[in-house]
């Protein structure tokens, strides 16, 4: 059954008709064509689908879309500036080799963003905890952690 919903998506007020069984990930990908967030497992186990809802990083594959009603939803597509300039986190990911195949990257970046919104100067342990739920098969995580650390230092 479809229900009407309203929320703020990357700073814009939007409306949608969401099925009661539909996940937020599916709504974002299918209805809004925001395909940055990825489905790596569909079970809440890999973090590839991470987006930010009201300041918290969530696995959008297991969050019912309707639960985002009235919330502030941020996806990776909303990070870069209006002129296309990369967010410091995105820039650091590129500069530090934190991206290889890139499949985990949008989720990883959003987990990091939620962390830095909360804690402007996290230590390594905190960073690693924040991205613990984001699996990456390519990088071994080191360059990702370095990127997040550097972005934190650079961000105003």
């Amino acid at each position, binding site marked *: 059954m479809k229900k009407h919903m309203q929320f703020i998506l990357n700073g814009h007020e939007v409306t949608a008709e969401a099925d009661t069984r539909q996940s937020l990930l599916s709504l974002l990908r299918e209805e809004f064509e925001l395909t940055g967030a990825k489905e790596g497992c569909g079970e809440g*186990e890999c973090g590839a689908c991470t987006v930010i809802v009201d300041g918290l990083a969530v696995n959008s594959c297991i969050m019912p879309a309707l639960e985002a009603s009235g919330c502030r939803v941020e996806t*990776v597509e909303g990070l*870069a500036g209006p002129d296309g300039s990369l967010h410091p986190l*995105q820039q650091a990911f590129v500069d530090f080799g934190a991206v290889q195949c*890139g499949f985990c990257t949008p989720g990883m970046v959003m987990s990091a963003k939620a962390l830095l919104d909360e804690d402007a100067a996290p230590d390594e342990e905190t960073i690693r905890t924040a991205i613990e739920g984001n699996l990456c*098969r390519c*990088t*071994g*995580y080191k360059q990702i952690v370095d990127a997040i650390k550097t972005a934190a230092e650079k961000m105003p």
Partner: protein
Amino acid sequence: MSELNYVGKRIPRSDGAKKVTGQAIYINDLKRPGMLYGAILYSRYPHALIKSIDVSRAKALPGVRAVITADDVPEIPIGFIKDNRPLKKGKVRSMRDEIAAVAATDPDIAAEAVSLIKVEYEPLPGVFTPEEALAEGAPLIHDLDFKGRPATSNKVKLPWKLVCGDPDEGKSRAKHVVEHEYRTTFVSHCCMGASGVVAEFDHDKNLTMYSITQIPYLAQGDYLEALKVLGLGRSKVRVLCQTIGGGFGSKLDTHCYEFIAILLSFATGKPVKILFSREEEFLAQATRQPTITRISQGCDENGRLTFREIKMLLDNGAYTSWGATTPSVMMVPASSLYRVPNVFYDADIVYTNNLYSQAFRGYGNPQATFAVECSMDELAEAAGIDPAEFRLINANQPGETSPQRFQITSCGLSECIEKVRDGLGWDQHLAAKAAGNHATGSKARGMGLASLIHVGGGARVYRSDGHGMIMKLDDFGKLSVFTGAVEIGQGTESTLRQVVAESVGLPIEDVNIVSHDTDICPWDVGTHASRQAFISCNAAIQCAGELKKKLFALAGEQMKADPAELEMREGSIFRKGAEDQAMPLLKVLKRAHFSTQGKMVMAETFYDPPNEMLDKEMKGNLSCSWAFGCHGVEVEVDTATGQVKILNYQAAHDVGKALNPLFIEGQIYGAAVMGTGMALTEELRLDHGKVMNGSFTDYKLLTAKDVLPVTPIIVETFDPAGPYGAKGIGEPGCVPSSPAIANAIYDAIGVRMSELPMTPERVLKAIKEKNR
């Protein structure tokens, strides 16, 4: 060599921005007009006869456009020895056997339709280990062998045998001999992007495959074969690779699901997408080749190896993919890791009712090196020599030819061992141990080493190991480079861009890499064997030479200069030594183009490396440069819980020349974590052929919290055959992790771990056995 502008620099990857903004299009993100969604029904039994299949209810479901079984389609033989079919007829031989497939207007309908298919089975007794499969009276999994003759046993008839020198003589000369058995298991690639494809026919019945293959040109050949069977002998196939969410060897074969997508698209006349769920990925994406290895080796009184003998038993699973060919690379460390004059290697590959295996980063090398390097430590102990010293005594040296006839041109193995030893504080550890004041007891500490050899200059496993390339300069001074290379995340396109900019003499921003399209880009054998940077960059250097010949001929005319004296740097052409009188490339190109009888500048090349196929005796210089490395770890073993913690991880690699240290470090970090996963946590558990842990909750990948303190050490030896001296680094980093860790555990607690993964349960069990 004059100063380098781009090569050797830490230049961030060119597809980075696309990937961090979510703009990169993966197979998951691709939609085609009118596209249908495919789903596959897998077997419920590991070994059974199919008595009947009833698809009527599935067909009747609204939204379903096609339901197919083996009865509806012609037989398409697939796999390395063509013993597999996309859809199985009459009999299933493993839990992943594809029985039927559906195409529907939406993925949920397709899944529902699959659940409505009724299959009647008659279960058969199965065999689930190679030993069982070889036992007298074991059920035969295939009635016919691959030549169509009645099968007499479950052995796959592939002749993986190598004899070098005189192993008996080597044995009789040995002062110390050790022998042991090592086992490795099923490991999943776990690409974060699961498998998927879109197959689409146009109205002329030409096929486009939107694909994630690592071998677009070999795949093109496989698909063409399939089309022939479908009566489409004149059809063309175009393979368009999407952004690929991880490869690691999993995309080196063409898989059942790809052919099923073709069949469904053929049946419906619509584009059909198949995208695996994670559960499906664990079940139906072939694994790393499991092994049972019996190894013995010996050395003389000076610690010099006199012989090595290895017998392997490989679980082939029910069908034959590239897993069955991994002995070709297992032989590499068997014969040529360290100097060992006399070698015997033999592998038996046996059908079972398990999942079948395929290529996986290292191509069998990690499994073989696990045995070789653990055994090296055992032998060092038997000979009373420090394991690091023992390795240095036997280390390969440049200029040698190994008994398998590998020509080792550059070799930094000794330097790698020494650097790792220093990075670990090995000598201090030895001194502390001798003085009895290192950590023992419930938190015992120990150190271990393991080295590696791997192909570093391509690998002639097919008749051609080549790479075609086209370069085209446009009217705006920009260069397009058409390459068959596939980017699977390792950064090959970005490396290639650096090398092109360097060797042509252009600003890197003016170099545009065009790839992933078999219609446009020339042939390449595939992204495998750590070959892509080596081969494509060599092709680039060769092609740049051709391009500049043509360009300088034109520029010479315009500048009244001898073309042989010209050079280009950052898009300026000048006479050597007269950089101040340069002419911009753009001007030369425009003048040449916009004149009567105008000319444009393009060049093409095909680079095929000077390496050899193995001969009938399995000898020959398989790769034209050889990669070496050494990993060393310090561990802390909790003897109460069996938990192994890695305190220090030094990873030294002889990369020839680091074309981009940022990417090389990325390969080392990633591979070391992957290798450590294989060593400590990763195992796809099968019970009577059934996957017991097909999810990320149950299949333990290392996470960011499992801090692995890896220090990458780059050793440069400048290989004469390598582009700017470089050799391959894609696979080597995951090869020595398991034995290095096993050796460190032994050093810490005196327990020899001989089975992977070395989970806490297994460590505890081994401790108990030792104390018994």
